[in-house]
């Protein structure tokens, strides 16, 4: 049989096709009929029908989301959110104090304009290439693959970015926005310090004063990052209120913003907060998934089968997943921080162990008690122990498009060590959670199964925590 090569209109990649009459490749020609995708569509239909009236009194409550059957197969129904009110289904929104509303609306307008500004994307792309070091490689983890004996494991090496994590992708985008808005001062919150370092970095680069709010407890846990921020010229303000961790740092940043509305831009670090932040941060992080798509097509001639990423607020995972949401064959797994285990209550798994609520400007899944009081998350990873999660993840969880799992501190620690010894890479404790799930799932998958795990940060910052956990002296 002759093999035809022509570009597929869904994955834009030339693949051998057995049915030349179609303009899509074999994978896409076999389409939605195989296994998991059918289940996705089935579950989605049910949620659309049952879920719609739950959208509290909205005028569009009865309008169902378009189903893949009712639209062009190439039109992606999972990527159209948020709506004009900033909602992903029930989640998201703009739950902020009135003082901040004009600012939120201003950011929304400015970002809306920017999205269609070609010059902006050219400028951003240039910084991502020459300053951040993108594209980050897609690396075939050969030794880990043969160790597990299952799926072909690829690492998306976002830990090789300038400042050592994916956070900088978003910071470069937002600082360019802040500059165009004429803002003269930047504030940010940080947990593990990675977002604080990335924000301090871009502020130094663009000559803007930077104030970073960080929980006093986190400052103690992440001293090296505190020092890095100060070296970069940022003011790091210890937050002594509440539980003195990330959620309190976010409260304090919001309080700062309320008090300095005229000149200050709040550079939020994850795909959460009031609209338009969840959508904007996702857009800036989607470079991760877009690169993976091209790189995997170049390496294997087809799209990946499974994507795995860790979830705190969820920006690295959304960045990887979002460009693939309309590919029903691509399975996606978000890995939450299970801490000591979901049943112990000491965890940071908002989706698996939390309930919907409203905090920090959006409705999403939260760790909270029966009275709606916010609970502290626990994770060995300071970057994951936030009691909430981005609203788009909440929606993707409810629709079933993305599968969410949790791994414990111990499992993450074991995966960290395995990765260090087999691949010569020290991952951050955050992506070590994703690796821990790969360790469980990979062995049972076929050897031609393509699995991508987002290595969203490097582990240098965590060596003290890990030494503690392993009860080893440095």
């Amino acid at each position: 049989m002759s093999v035809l090569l022509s570009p597929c209109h869904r994955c834009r990649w030339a693949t051998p096709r057995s049915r030349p009459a179609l303009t899509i490749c074999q994978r896409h020609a076999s389409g939605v009929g195989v296994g998991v995708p059918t289940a996705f569509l089935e579950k989605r239909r049910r949620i659309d029908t049952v879920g719609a009236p739950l959208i509290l009194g909205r005028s569009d409550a009865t309008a169902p989301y378009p189903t893949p059957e009712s639209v062009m197969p190439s039109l992606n129904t999972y990527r159209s959110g948020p709506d004009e009110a900033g909602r992903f289904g029930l989640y998201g929104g703009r739950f902020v104090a009135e003082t901040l509303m004009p600012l939120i609306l201003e950011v929304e307008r400015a970002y809306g304009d920017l999205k269609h500004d070609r010059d902006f994307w050219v400028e951003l792309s240039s910084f991502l290439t020459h300053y951040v070091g993108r594209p980050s490689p897609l690396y075939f983890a050969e030794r880990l693959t043969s160790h597990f004996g299952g799926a072909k494991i690829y690492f998306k090496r976002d830990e090789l970015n300038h400042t050592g994590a994916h956070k900088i992708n978003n910071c470069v985008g937002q600082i360019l926005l802040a500059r165009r808005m004429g803002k003269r001062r930047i504030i940010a919150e940080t947990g593990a310090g990675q977002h604080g370092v990335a924000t301090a970095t871009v502020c130094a680069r663009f000559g803007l004063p930077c104030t970073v709010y960080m929980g006093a407890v986190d400052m103690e846990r992440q001293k090296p990052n505190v020092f890095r921020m100060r070296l970069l010229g940022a003011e790091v303000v210890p937050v002594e209120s509440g539980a003195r961790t990330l959620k309190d740092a976010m409260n304090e940043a919001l309080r700062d913003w309320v008090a300095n509305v005229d000149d200050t831009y709040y550079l939020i670090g994850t795909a959460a907060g009031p609209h338009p932040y969840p959508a904007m941060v996702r857009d800036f992080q989607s470079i991760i998934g877009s690169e993976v798509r091209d790189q995997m097509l170049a390496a294997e001639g087809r799209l990946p089968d499974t994507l795995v990423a860790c979830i705190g607020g969820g920006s690295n995972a959304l960045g990887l997943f979002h460009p693939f949401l309309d590919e029903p064959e691509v399975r996606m797994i978000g890995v939450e921080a299970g801490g000591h285990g979901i049943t112990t209550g000491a965890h940071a798994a908002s989706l698996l162990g939390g309930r919907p609520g409203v905090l920090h400007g959006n409705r999403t899944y939260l760790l909270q008690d029966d009275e709606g009081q916010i609970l502290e998350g626990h994770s060995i990873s300071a970057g994951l122990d936030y009691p909430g999660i981005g609203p788009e993840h909440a929606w993707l969880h409810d629709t079933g498009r993305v599968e969410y799992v949790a791994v414990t501190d111990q499992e993450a620690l074991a995966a960290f060590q395995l990765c260090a010894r087999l691949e010569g890479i020290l991952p951050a404790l955050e992506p070590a959670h994703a690796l821990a799930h790969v360790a469980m799932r990979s062995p049972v998958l076929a050897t031609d199964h393509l699995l991508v795990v987002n290595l969203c940060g490097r582990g240098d910052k965590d060596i003290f925590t890990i030494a503690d956990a392993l009860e080893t002296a440095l």
Partner: protein
Amino acid sequence: MSGAAEQTPVAESGRIRHRFEALRREGRAGLVTFVTAGDPDHGTCAALLQHLPGAGADLIELGMPFTDPMADGPAIQAASLRAIKAGATMERTLDLVAGFRQQDDETPVVLMGYYNPIFRFGTERFLDAARQAGVDGLIVVDVPPEEDEELCLPALHAGLNFIRLATPTSDDVRLRTVLRHTSGFVYYVAITGITGTSTADNVDIATAVTRLRRHTALPVAVGFGIKIPMQAGAVARVADAAVVGSAIVGRIADHLDGDGRPQPSLVPAVVELVEALAAGVRAGRDKDRSIGNAT
């Protein structure tokens, strides 16, 4: 409650309207006092509530405790945490109001707080229970007009006033949005900032209140940063009410022992402060000012 009954709007209690009408007749502004429900404990808070009207509080704002009050300064944050630690719940907050109503059926009670505890309790259930307990209005900081369908409209339907915050960042266009479904009174936030921190300039407040009056016939209360009787008096000259929160809550904190238990001096000390604030408010209009023509 049957489905048909749920369709019928509940009439508002009218206490807020009656109180502002009475103040207008007296030719003076009112004093709105804020305390956090269950702070420092349930019993002490109930005693405080009983004493507030006698000490000169014309309206009572009762804070619904929340772990993460983003618009509040250190004093009210601490009050929330004290109350939660002492076992405050939404049920008990409503019990405090119901208890207060047994001895006072005229002083308006407005619940102030954040959306999540209400959302968790169940919005419909909350509105119903609040109206039954004798609550007259709600101020929920993190539900702006963009989210009216979440809480504001259901609250109005359930017979509760929904009091919105107008701020220095609300321009004329924004004010129309803010005031659209506001009822009872308008709460003007005098500063861009959190509760109990900086203090606004009196001229700025006068200008802002005048601007608000061009947009609404509702009474205007002014709060955030009012700490001493003289400031309350200055606000009373131009506004229909002055709101004092952090100063009262701070006074509560001053009268706790090392273990956070209330000292016997607590209630008298708060009463004394409220009396002084009330005197300040009443003296504010002595220069023959009347509501409506303030500038």
